[in-house]
Every structure is written in structure tokens, then in C-alpha cells.
């Protein structure tokens, strides 16, 4: 029974990783028509270095992902602090309001943002992308840092204050250091949400100024170049490292909480 279960899991993993393996293999394949068998080559990585649209789109993606991560974590952590630590009317309603950005299909949110931003003159472009990405990331941040905050006892802060610390000082020296692993985990998650976001970026990007997923989509529709496999392989390596850090940090958080 156990052996059967393990074999089945391996089959599922093979299915999940097949296209990823193909992508990496094709990035190192000399043929531009993806013909098999593979002739090893690094020419797509070399070509990539001089592909301006792809490089600038990658730069935009990284820039927006960094900015999104910082803003969403800051704003989301503040909200989580209020939602977890303060008692007030309408708290349940405010929590419910975090669900639409996660639950409504991106297509609907993306087109709604396009309509509204165009209409009010906010327009399209990197700033519009940033507004959209941060809005998408905030609910995730609140849901990740909220439980982390619950495991930190409020009386620690109270003890600090009874010893003469100001509320601000108590928060920054007592609560924040304990909270930090889940805050960093949330920041990484927000970074990844932004880096992978395609639908909203697609509707909000201005001609000529796009992010990597948008650039990939338009080149798939125009006629694909294997450089995309090369840059995706690089991004895959980056995000794998990020999720490993994320997993390590969320483990850390739970171990500390159970103590």
C-alpha cells in the first residue's frame, strides 16, 4: 500500500515537472525549432544578453516585484497589527474585504483596473502596474503575518512597558524581532506574486513598457524565440531559491510558536 502510494506520488511529480524539464532542456538546445534530439548549446543565453526588449522587461519585473514586496509588506503588516491586536467594530467585515482580491478571477479585476485607471487619468504603465500588484499582494501579506502575530504574547510588550519602555519602543524591540520571520516570509511571497503576475500586468502595461510575463505572452503570439526558455530558466533558479528561503522561514516561525 505504502509502495503503491509512493510510486503514484512519483508519477504525479513526473507530470508536474515534465514541462519544466522540457523548458530547461530547450534553453540549452541549439535548434531554434525545438527539434529533438538535443544538441547542447548556450547560444540562447548569449543571444539573451543583447535582447534589449526582454532585458528591459526583466528589469521592470524585478523593479516592480521589489517595490511591491516592500510596500505590500509594510502596509499589510500594519493592517494585520490592527486586525489582530485591536478590538473594534467591523473587524469581521474588514477581514472579509481582503477576500475579493484573492477570490475574484484576475481577468475581472484586471479589466476593472484598466477601465478605472484609464477613465480617471491614472493611465497605464509601470505606476499602474505597481498599484495593481500591491493591491493583489496586501491580502496575502495580512494572511501570512496575522497568524505569526498570534503566537507572540501581548504580555511581553506589556512587561516591557511596565519596566518603563514606551509603546513604540516596546513594539520595535520586543514584538518585531519575534515577528520578523513571518514578515520576511510575507515579503518573499509578495515578491513572488508580483514576479509571476501576468493577467493584471497584461491589461495595465503601456505599449513598449512591459514586464517579463507580458513580453513572453506577446512573443508567444508573434512567434517564440528560445531566448525566452533561457531567461525563464534563470528566473526559475531565482524563484526556487526564494521558496526554499520562504519554506525555511515559515518552518522557523512555527517551531518558535510551538515552544
Amino acid at each position, binding site marked *: 500500500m*505504502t509502495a*503503491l502510494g*509512493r510510486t*503514484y*506520488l512519483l508519477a504525479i*511529480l513526473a*507530470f*508536474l*515537472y*515534465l*514541462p*519544466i524539464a*522540457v*523548458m530547461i532542456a*530547450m534553453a540549452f538546445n541549439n535548434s531554434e525549432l*525545438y527539434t*529533438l534530439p538535443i544538441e547542447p548549446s548556450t547560444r540562447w543565453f548569449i543571444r539573451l544578453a543583447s535582447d534589449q526588449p526582454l532585458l528591459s522587461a526583466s528589469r521592470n519585473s524585478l523593479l516592480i516585484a521589489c517595490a511591491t514586496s516592500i510596500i505590500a509588506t*509594510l*502596509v*499589510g503588516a*500594519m*493592517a494585520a497589527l490592527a*486586525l489582530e491586536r*485591536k478590538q473594534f467594530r467591523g473587524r469581521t467585515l*474588514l477581514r472579509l474585504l*481582503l477576500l*475579493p482580491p484573492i*477570490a*475574484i*478571477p*484576475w*481577468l*475581472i*479585476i484586471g479589466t*476593472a*483596473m*484598466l*477601465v*478605472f*485607471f484609464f*477613465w*480617471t487619468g491614472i493611465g497605464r504603465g509601470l505606476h499602474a502596474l505597481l*498599484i495593481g500588484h*500591491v*493591491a493583489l499582494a496586501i491580502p496575502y501579506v495580512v494572511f501570512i503575518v496575522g497568524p505569526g502575530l498570534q503566537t507572540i504574547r501581548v504580555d511581553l510588550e506589556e512587561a516591557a512597558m511596565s519596566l518603563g519602555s514606551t509603546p513604540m519602543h516596546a513594539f520595535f524591540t520586543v514584538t518585531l524581532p519575534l515577528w520578523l520571520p513571518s514578515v520576511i516570509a510575507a515579503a518573499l511571497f509578495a515578491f*513572488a506574486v508580483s514576479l509571476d503576475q*501576468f*493577467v493584471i500586468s497584461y491589461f495595465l502595461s503601456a505599449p513598449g513598457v512591459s514586464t517579463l510575463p507580458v513580453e*513572453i*505572452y506577446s512573443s*508567444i*503570439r508573434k512567434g*517564440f524565440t528560445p531566448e*525566452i*526558455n533561457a531567461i525563464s530558466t534563470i*528566473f526559475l533558479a531565482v*524563484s*526556487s531559491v526564494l*521558496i526554499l528561503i520562504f*519554506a525555511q522561514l515559515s518552518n522557523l516561525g512555527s517551531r518558535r510558536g510551538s515552544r
Partner: protein
Amino acid sequence: MLLAPAYGWLTLAVFLPLGAMLFFSFLKAAPFGPRPLQFTIDNYLAFARRPYLVGVAWTSVEIGLWTTGLCAILGLPAALALARATRGRSQQVLFLLIVLPFWTNGLVRIFSWTMVLREGGVLDYALHLVAPSAPTFSLLYSFPAIIIGLVHAYLPYMILTCYLSAAAIDDAYIEAARSLGARAPIIFAKVVLPLCLPGLISGSILIFVPVIGSFMEPRILGGRIGVTMGTIIEDQFVQAFNWPLGAALSFTMLGAVLLVFALARGFPRRLLSA
């Protein structure tokens, strides 16, 4: 106030836009330029005026049902195997390996499938290694291709939600059923399946809702046959510039999504009381 930035941001980027889109969906033409506003409900009558949309909507629902069903059939056993057949370190590693593909760009994964499924692609090539005389075949630009791509994209959701349910099942229940003489299929149907139901339901919602709104997967893997509500809405905004119609179609879809949520909320309670 600590809450103001977060909710201000969400208002600006999500709630006001949804409101603006609702307003747009009742307009005859987008309110750009000096023309006076003209209100109409024509956009919502699109399904009656353009009968082909009913077929397109049905295709979207079909894609959603196939994807969700296959994810459930493949994902539940995987979740059970993960929860029951592995433990400790290897369980953690397998869990991480299942979540990891999430973090690669969805678009690239879908594109990789075109390299697998097309004529002369990986699958075709592998078949010819085994059977050199077989005719070449291509699954690309077909309904199964869209389903394969979507199942691949959403399967980890189902495994995760079912795993959370499966991991919570107390071994004692299964032991009790076994000691009372129940055989494996009965234990599965009467004990394991009901206890995994919450995971199956939340997984199904997490999959069905985005799948009916998908547009890049049907476009890339379905080619000309990949016309869904998602691609129609995309066209209204990107090519046809009929924003009011696109807005109305988006809102119709939102209605469908809310209906799914409402059904899912009522569903488990009715099952429990029955």
C-alpha cells in the same frame, strides 16, 4: 490609523475599479470624448443577441468541469499518499516539490506544453523511439491540450487542500472501521472520502473559479478552437475596444463566480445535516 493605507489602497485598486466597471457595463459607448452618456442594458442582453456566446460560455464551463474533475481524481489519491504513505523528512521534501512548480511562471509552463504536445514534440518523439512506424501525431490546438495544460497548472491546489484534510484524519477511525470488518473500498467511501470532502470542495472552488476566467491557456494551447469567455472578454478590451460589452461580460462572469461561492457555502452544511 494602521488600517488606512491597506484599505485605502484596496479601495483605489480593487473596489473603485469594480464600481467603475459596473457603471461602464450600462453604457452604450465608453465615456471618452464629448459625447453625452447614454445608458442601456443592451450589454447584458448580449447572450440573447449573440447566440454563439451561449456556446462559448458552455465551453468555458465544460473546461472548468473537466479540469476540476480531473484535478480531484488525480489530486485526492496524491494527497492521501502524501499524508499516509510518507512521513518526516521525506514528507516535507515531497510537499515542497509539489508546491515548487507554482513558483515558476505559469505562462512559461503553458508554453512548455506546446513543445511537448506538438508534432515532432517531446511526446511524439518519445512515441517514435518506442514505435518507429507509428504515424506522427499532435495534440496541440485541441480540447485535450487545453485540459492538460490547465490540470497541470491547478493540480497542486487540489493536492494542498486535500492534504490538509487528509492529514487531519485520525488513524483510530480507520482502525475502528477495519476492526469492524470493513474492507478498503468501504473504508475509503464511508470514512476517508467524507472526511476529505472539505478539502475537495475548497480545492474545487480554488480551481473552478480561475479556470472559467482563464484566457491565455486556451489561446496558447487551443489555438483557433480555444475560444472561451476569457478570450472573448480579453478581445473586447484589447482588440475590439468594446469596453462596455467587456465590462458586462466580466460582471456576468463575476455573478457566476459568486453563485459558485454561494453554492459551496450551502453545500457542506446540507450534507452534514442529511
